[in-house]
């Protein structure tokens, strides 16, 4: 189990909420929600569509089914997850592991969404 919480910044406590990792999780709020004033122009945002492709839809296609079948075939049913010794251990260890995963996973996904020249100059 992993629990990751992030304070958005009010009041500014431990974290600022504007780091890449946290921004990634609220991208869709910033880009897809929020107030729209019809008479104003919304700049055309190339790359946002890429985000939407990621939306999970269980597509009823043979390809998808075959992938699921393969995943089942690969699964080792004998090895269940071992029960954790102490909850605190998981929270700490899990969170750390997840953070690494998030950090290493996010830039790839983000670079698809954001512009290529989006380097800190």
């Amino acid at each position: 189990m992993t629990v990751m919480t992030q304070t958005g910044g009010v009041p500014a406590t431990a974290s600022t909420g504007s780091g890449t990792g946290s921004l990634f999780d609220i991208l869709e709020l910033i880009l897809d929600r929020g107030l729209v004033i019809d008479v104003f122009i919304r700049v055309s945002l190339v790359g946002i569509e890429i985000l939407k492709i990621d939306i999970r839809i269980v597509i009823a296609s043979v390809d998808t089914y075959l992938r699921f079948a393969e995943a089942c075939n690969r699964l080792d049913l004998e090895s269940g997850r071992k029960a954790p010794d102490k909850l605190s251990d998981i929270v700490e260890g899990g969170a750390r592991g997840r953070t690494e995963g998030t950090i290493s996973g996010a830039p790839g996904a983000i670079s698809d969404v954001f512009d290529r020249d989006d380097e800190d100059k």
Partner: protein
Amino acid sequence: MATTSPSLYIYAVTGSGHPLRLAGLRAVGGGSGALRAVTGGPLACVVSPAPPDLRPKRRDLAAHQEVQERLMADGAVLPMRFGMLAPDDAAVTAALDDKRAAYVRRLEELHATAEFNLKAARSQDDLLREVLTESDDARRLNERTRDGGGTYADRVALGELVARQLDARQRLLADQVVGRLSEMARDKAVAPPAGDDFLNASFLVERERAEEFSRAARQLAQGYGEGYDFRLRGPLPPYSFVV
């Protein structure tokens, strides 16, 4: 926007009585000290000169978000969706006048509230294992198709069965989580989850109950145990509750 180039980037609508501490904030497109307010009656709109060639760059999205965070620290705010541009001050004032009553009412309703967004995923292997344990049909098909056995139709049938079960289980999980947290929220907005997530829900929470809400979400997550990944973000500007 080829002919008349819009000149203002719009961040948020708020009350004209808002302290509007804009000093030191980074503008979308770069530069500090560029933010100001355009007021119209009881409302104010936070703007900056529109950057040429605006695109959703990471630092610009962060700047947009930081403006909201600064504003919501001092009062209710209607955050704009990223990328809204207006031609000039007069157009902003006109737009505020046009929807004055609705904006004023919504700002009052959002007073002392914040959005919390909760995303959650469950290990797909765990889900598959659960399906295979509980469904005789799935288990039988899985055994038949292992090590290249069975027919093509068997593999498709297995995949279809499992896909349906997976989807049903994820929906059930999402409903459970939303059900448990809704009672602590004033409103909720459930959106399609992305990637491996089974949940993407936003909650409008009263500031007074924010800590209670976060604590409840954490306890809920801990209750689900290993193989789950919950990501709670908040307090956030109420992007999902502006209308």
